[in-house]
């Protein structure tokens, strides 16, 4: 290893580490970054560039580095596009180079460099625009060529946390300016946080310090997004500890002390390994004791180069020359180092790393004087183009920038409430920076954006083609759109555009800064909300019973509802058939606790119900229930359910499972915003009740077996009536309503007693072979009965009349949506009506979602007559049936149509029927 004996303040020479890069084993020290360790081991080429596959090395020393991107780790923890300059070395670290094939030093894609005149700015747009049908082929090709590393295919074995916090003052950046500001801010007892993206951050009194923490985004009202990398510096996180933590911090005010990033200079072949930002070169020596080369040339437009030269010389690097682009300077002499003013580097050489630079004096126009070039051998070229304040979070907050001539860059101009920018981020930089010069060139590339391979020629071409706005330039050339967000390239890109347009740089403007400052992992953004925790799961009081008794579950909103209950190895179709027939011929029970339940109290409830349902509710007597349909104000069906009149000024409404929340918000809106004068109080009571439906011709017999003070005969509890009573000492409400079309009762008890009720029902029906049934049987039963549901049939575009509910629409009162019924669109011919379908052959299943057509072969002249909504196998009828929404469907019963599946191309001939397949007169449910 090449290490200076005394320099290297961050490394611990007592803690050697070994790691591999592209399979080779190397040694480094604790405190190294992957970049510094590779440099110490003489590895110069780190990867291949994005577009031209040119060899690239280490260019910077921190988050600004555009080119030293590596594939980190392997297997499930593999992570592409990691900046080697920020990866902390650990024992056993595994990294690979990216974007090369078959190997880093012999890359086939580099051949592209030879045909690069065919890859100008806007290349993708121009080449791959037309014809559109070829796009999938182009896309495949582009993705293969442009891939920057590979993401892991297996699930991430680590976990990520998300935390919310508040502080009075958030200081971003742990340099001198940030530390001073944090200390100052803490003096009055304020809660101060100081965060820094680097590993080293010394503690401060009365300040919460967080190292390895990047403030990546500024959001509204003082919210900041931070990522703390708690496990990235380890082979794997400590047991139980997260890999990363996403902090969402609401800060009273923020102090931005994020420093400044050095700008490169633009000249031919300025991307070779061995060309580094001057400040970075000095850091590798001072921080890690690594000399980035043996013989250096420094090219600069400002005084910082002289300090870098001193550091390099102290570190044993021979500094052959300082090339100062400016005409004159007051700087000191440096022993053994040639200093050339008014000169520039105009080209470089070295296939796998820098070997030589070409310099030339500049003429009055700032271009190289012809035939005056000189070659200097060197393996390190330090570029010092001045510093650009890191104002990202200030700009994300809407802060405006202004151009300062003395430092040739943008600095904060406006005040942003709650944000103070300090130190070099605020432009506290040495002046005397030379203006950017634009060197003429032959065919050689002058890179501006090293990550996206955008050259000065690309910017000029874009300007010639009319891309005059810097935002358009960015999108057209992809300048600054890489994972580095153009930290080193944006200003040089603007300067090149200003030059091409012959406008002063400040007039060109600057692209909008957007979060994130550096890439944030999806894992951190997701936090714990993965897998089973992606959404909360709602559980009914009977969930455990369903789980213990082999139910197969299906998601219904946030609920997991039993889909069916297979017996032994029973197939789904057989189980559903058995459950359906149990309801039709015997008795079965189903958990319907998921239906929304809203309690309504107040003197105006009846009036309110009258306004929200299409049918009348004022005549509903205590002890009775009524089915109701709600519309939106545009006349489309919004929800349906039943309302029971419980007592004076007291009703209970049920909603569909999925719509319980939206219905509650809808009712609250009309009560609070539209009719605040109505006296109605709403309470969601879904979670307070366990509700079980007992359905089938034997359901009354089953209930009569219960230990209860209630009577269930027709006279005592008629169809659509409800009664309160006790079932085995549990206070219960029994509603005689039916979804299946059979004699049925819905039994409601307080949640805690749900399981007891269920067991009592099973016990009472044991001799009749009562069984539980799931939602698939429920769907089959309601489809046989011709009931539409929200979603498949009532999909937000269907009116009550479309569903055949025209007779329900009250003409005696106003209600939500009524006015819309007179709109031409709702009265016109040709609306989709609910119909039933049966396959003509009586046996072929009808594809759900199929398009209805009036002929077997699709084509432009085929009438598209609607679509299939729900398709089931009717166990009762012994054949497949379906519901469909069909154009003028009510007038087409008996007609033959074809159902065309857009998914698998199946075409099934069907007959249009009435949607009610069984018991059209409703005798069974009144039995």
């Amino acid at each position, binding site marked *: 290893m090449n290490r200076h004996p005394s320099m290297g303040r961050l490394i611990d020479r007592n803690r050697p580490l070994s790691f591999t890069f592209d399979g080779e084993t190397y040694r480094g020290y604790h405190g190294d970054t992957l970049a510094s360790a590779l440099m110490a081991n003489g590895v110069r080429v780190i990867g291949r560039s994005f577009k031209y596959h040119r060899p690239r090395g280490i260019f910077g020393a921190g988050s600004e580095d555009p080119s030293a991107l590596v594939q980190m780790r392997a297997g499930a923890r593999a992570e592409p596009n990691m900046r080697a300059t920020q990866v902390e070395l650990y024992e056993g670290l595994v990294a690979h180079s990216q974007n090369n094939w078959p190997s880093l030093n012999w890359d086939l894609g580099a051949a592209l460099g030879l045909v690069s005149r065919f890859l100008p700015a806007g290349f993708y747009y121009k080449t791959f625009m037309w014809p559109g049908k070829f796009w999938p082929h182009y896309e495949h090709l582009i993705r293969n060529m442009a891939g920057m590393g590979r993401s892991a295919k297996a699930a991430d074995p680590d976990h990520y946390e998300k935390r919310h916090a508040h502080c009075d003052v958030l200081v971003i950046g742990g340099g001198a300016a940030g530390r001073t500001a944090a200390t100052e801010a803490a003096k009055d007892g304020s809660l101060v946080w100081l965060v820094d993206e680097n590993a080293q951050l010394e503690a401060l009194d009365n300040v919460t310090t967080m190292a390895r923490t990047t403030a990546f985004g500024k959001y509204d009202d003082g*919210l900041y997004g931070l990522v703390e990398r708690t496990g990235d510096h380890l082979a794997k996180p400590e047991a139980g500890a997260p890999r990363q933590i996403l902090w969402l911090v609401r800060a009273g005010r923020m102090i931005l002390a994020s420093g400044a990033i050095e700008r490169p200079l633009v000249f031919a072949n300025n991307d070779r390994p061995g060309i580094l930002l001057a400040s970075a070169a000095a850091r590798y020596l001072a921080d890690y004791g690594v000399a980035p080369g043996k013989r250096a040339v420094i090219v600069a437009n400002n005084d910082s180069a002289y300090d870098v030269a001193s550091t390099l010389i102290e570190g044993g690097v021979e500094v052959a020359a300082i090339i100062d682009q400016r005409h004159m300077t007051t700087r000191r002499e440096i022993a053994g180092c040639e200093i050339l003013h008014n000169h520039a580097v105009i080209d470089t050489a070295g296939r796998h790393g820098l070997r030589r630079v070409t310099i030339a004096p500049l003429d009055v126009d700032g271009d190289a004087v012809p035939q005056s070039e000189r070659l200097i051998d060197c393996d390190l070229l330090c570029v010092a183009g001045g510093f650009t304040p890191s104002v990202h979070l200030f700009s994300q907050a809407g802060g405006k920038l202004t151009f300062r001539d003395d430092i040739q860059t943008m600095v904060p101009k406006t005040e942003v409430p709650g944000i103070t920018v300090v130190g070099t981020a605020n432009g506290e930089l040495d002046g005397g920076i030379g203006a950017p010069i634009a060197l003429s060139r032959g065919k050689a590339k002058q890179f501006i954006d090293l990550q996206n391979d955008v050259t000065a020629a690309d910017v000029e071409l874009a300007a010639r083609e009319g891309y005059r706005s810097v935002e358009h330039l960015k999108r057209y050339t992809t300048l600054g759109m890489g994972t580095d967000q153009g930290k080193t390239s944006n200003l040089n890109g603007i300067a090149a555009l200003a030059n091409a347009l012959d406008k002063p740089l400040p007039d060109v403007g600057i692209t909008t800064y957007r979060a994130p400052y550096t890439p944030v992992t999806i894992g951190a953004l997701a936090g714990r909300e993965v897998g089973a925790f992606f959404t909360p799961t709602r559980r009914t009081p009977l969930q455990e019973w369903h789980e213990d008794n082999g139910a197969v579950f299906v998601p219904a909103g946030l609920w997991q509802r039993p889909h069916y209950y297979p017996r032994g190895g029973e197939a789904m179709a057989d189980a559903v058939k058995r459950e359906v027939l149990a309801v039709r011929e015997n008795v079965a029970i189903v958990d319907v606790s998921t239906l929304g339940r809203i309690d309504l109290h107040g003197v105006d409830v009846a009036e309110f119900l009258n306004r929200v349902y299409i049918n009348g509710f004022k005549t509903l007597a205590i002890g009775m229930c009524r089915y109701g349909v709600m519309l939106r104000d*545009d006349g489309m069906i919004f929800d349906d359910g039943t309302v029971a009149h419980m007592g004076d000024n007291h009703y209970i409404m049920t909603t569909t499972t999925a719509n319980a929340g939206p219905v509650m918000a809808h009712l609250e809106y009309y009560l*609070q*915003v539209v009719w605040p004068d109505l006296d109605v109080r709403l309470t969601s009571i879904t979670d307070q009740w366990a509700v079980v439906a007992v359905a089938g011709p034997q359901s009354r017999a089953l209930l009569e077996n219960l230990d209860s003070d209630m009577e269930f005969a027709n006279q005592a509890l008629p169809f659509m009536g409800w009664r309160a009573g006790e079932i085995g000492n549990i206070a219960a409400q029994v509603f005689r309503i039916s979804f299946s079309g059979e004699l049925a009762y819905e039994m409601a008890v307080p949640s805690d007693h749900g399981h007891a009720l269920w067991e009592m029902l099973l016990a009472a029906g044991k001799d009749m072979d009562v069984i539980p049934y799931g939602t698939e049987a429920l769907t089959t039963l309601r489809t046989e009965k011709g009931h539409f549901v929200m979603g498949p049939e009532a999909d937000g575009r269907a009116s009550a009349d479309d569903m055949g509910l025209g007779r329900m629409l009250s003409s005696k009162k106003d209600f939500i949506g009524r*006015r819309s019924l007179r709109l031409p669109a709702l009265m016109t011919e040709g609306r989709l009506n609910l119909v039933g379908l049966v396959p003509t052959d009586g046996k072929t299943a009808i594809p759900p979602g199929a398009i209805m057509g009036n002929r077997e072969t699709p084509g432009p002249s085929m009438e598209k007559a609607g679509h299939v909504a729900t398709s089931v196998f009717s166990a009762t009828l012994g054949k497949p049936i379906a519901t469909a929404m069909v154009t003028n469907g009510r007038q087409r019963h008996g007609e033959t149509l074809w159902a065309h599946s857009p998914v698998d191309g199946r075409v099934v001939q069907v007959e249009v029927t009435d949607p009610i397949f069984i018991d059209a007169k409703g005798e069974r449910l009144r039995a």
Partner: protein
Amino acid sequence: MILLTCPHCGPRGISEFTYRGDATVARPTAPEGVDDTSWVEYLHLRDNHKGPHDELWHHVQGCRRWLRVRRDVVTHKVISCCDLAGDPAGDVAESNP
């Protein structure tokens, strides 16, 4: 994330609320007397304001009250937030900067 200062619950992140739309659009009090054009305008047509705008927000994860929020849609600055049922002048809660 915008902070809304609910007059009942205090300052809360906007993820606790749902947005409905323009608070200045009033439902006609007698819809049957309204012509088709005006009704369709009430149902579907909204102005796209620049600058301060009155909006309806529902505190669904809090007090479940519908609130009238005056907000600059350019800067996201919340100018006021009050309960629709209360006296709008009396209930105004100034939001944090």
